[in-house]
């Protein structure tokens, strides 16, 4: 295996997005800003759902950030690169197809890590968040691994969204689901109708896994959330596969 081309592909995928303000700013700045507004300024030390608001929101806005980086990186990235014919050109080169997708996963994970680090630092410094070393580790690992299902969902979106509409489409899907999954305000406080929808959505399951680490959340067994996320990953990959096959027969795909 040509390891060097995997590494370079990932490096340039990251640089490409870092230099793209339309991606880098909303991906990194928005989650941190939301956390500052809702998790810190409105009283981070107040108790809620078995922990403090600052700690709870740190978990949910980190989840929000990780999901956003993955959904936009894949959904918009794939849609645009398909539309421009860049993907076609790449497919005609000897680049291993997996290098292309692995680079996008690496990029999403790296952005996710930056977001988690910034939000965690904010929590510790401004909202008095205190976790054990084990909890920090478990929270980061959960969220970073949790990027993968959303890469798969983003991949599917990227194959079905047009290059120009992709940003709007991803936003229209991401924002309401983030809200209904309890990423913005604690799930416990949502109206029952919204809750019953939220329980079916992928961000809910990742947020619950993150909240378990800090001793909060709805209390369902972890395996149910893991199973749901695995299911969404497979569904995303399956849809993406259909889209990929469909592209092969188009003149521009």
């Amino acid at each position, binding site marked *: 295996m040509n390891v060097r081309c995997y590494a370079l592909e990932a490096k340039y995928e990251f640089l490409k997005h870092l230099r793209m303000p339309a991606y880098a700013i909303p991906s990194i700045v928005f989650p941190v800003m939301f956390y500052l507004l809702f998790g810190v300024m409105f009283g981070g030390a107040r108790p809620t759902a078995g922990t403090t608001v600052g700690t709870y929101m740190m978990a949910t806005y980190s989840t929000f950030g990780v999901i956003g980086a993955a959904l936009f990186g894949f959904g918009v990235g794939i849609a645009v*690169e398909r539309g421009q014919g860049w993907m076609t050109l790449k497919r*005609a080169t000897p680049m291993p197809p997996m290098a292309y997708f692995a680079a996008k996963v690496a990029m999403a994970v790296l952005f996710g890590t930056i977001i988690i680090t910034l939000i965690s630092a904010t929590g510790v410094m401004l909202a008095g968040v205190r976790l054990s070393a084990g909890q920090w580790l478990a929270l980061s690992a959960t969220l970073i691994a949790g990027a993968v299902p959303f890469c798969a969902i983003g991949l599917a979106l990227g194959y079905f969204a047009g290059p120009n509409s992709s940003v709007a489409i991803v936003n229209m899907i991401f924002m309401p689901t983030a809200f209904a999954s309890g990423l913005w305000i604690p799930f416990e406080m949502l109206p029952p109708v919204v809750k019953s929808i939220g329980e079916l959505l992928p961000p809910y399951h990742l947020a619950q896994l993150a909240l378990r680490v800090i001793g909060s959340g709805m209390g369902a067994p972890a395996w149910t959330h893991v199973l749901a996320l695995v299911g969404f990953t497979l569904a995303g990959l399956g849809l993406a596969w259909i889209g990929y096959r469909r592209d092969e027969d188009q003149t521009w795909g």
Partner: protein
Amino acid sequence: MVGELRGVTKRFRGITAVDGVDLRLEAGKVTALLGPNGAGKTTTVRLMLGLTRPTSGTVRLFGEDPTAPAARQRTGVMLQVANVPETLRVREHVHLFCSYYPSPMTEDAALAAAGIGSLANRKYGELSSGQKQRVHFALAICGNPDLLFLDEPTVGLDVESRRAFWQEVRALVSRGRAILLTTHYLEEADALADRVVVMNQGAIVAEGAPHEMKQLAASRRIRCATSLTVDRLQAMPAVASVRRDGATTELLTNDAERVTRDLLIADATLSGLEVTGAGLEEAFLALTSARGQQSNVGAGGVR
């Protein structure tokens, strides 16, 4: 032989984009694929590259399936539609593409060959369309490929850049590379190609050496209404082809003066005489519009 299409047909959504095409690409030779928009040139290139599967027929690159990594490692591609990520620098793009190939050129050599050494640190998005074309060329050649696909490579280039580009292509050919070029510009095909293949409506309508195509192009078209039979006209000296369409007869020739004189002597009742200079463009249009009522053109290679 480097690449081959054998009896390849591609249909999608009820449209036959490529219809029974045979094509061979050889080392050290440039094959030019000429034809109007929608003739099937790009689909032919996509089939050769394994980007789309033929409905029937076989495609081989270096004796392998075109999607085989071994085949792709010997192939470089410049596609018409591709736009590349704008926030990466020219050198970064070339650096990445070099990593795909087993024995690539150095980045500097690829940049120099494409004439963009001075743009190495510029972001792709800041370049003019002509400069972008050259980046695409650098990406196509940086892997030292044995076979190069150039899909409309000089669209948007000024005359000077186009000539510099041709120079570079000739240098590659002299080193034994095979090239498949698609183009709208007949001049480009003439300047570069060893073999010109004219496509229309998905099929090959004519092929030959550029000099044969030029001979065709040098020809002139004589239109008239005459009582002479087609056989008689065909037998006249310097007449390349004859086609009768209702009352009008059309002749192609390289010596219009002589044929006109002979015609007027042989048929006193001849009327509606019209002589038009062809030019390659004209010959090309005649070839692509005459499909289905193919004429018996003398200039070799045309079928």
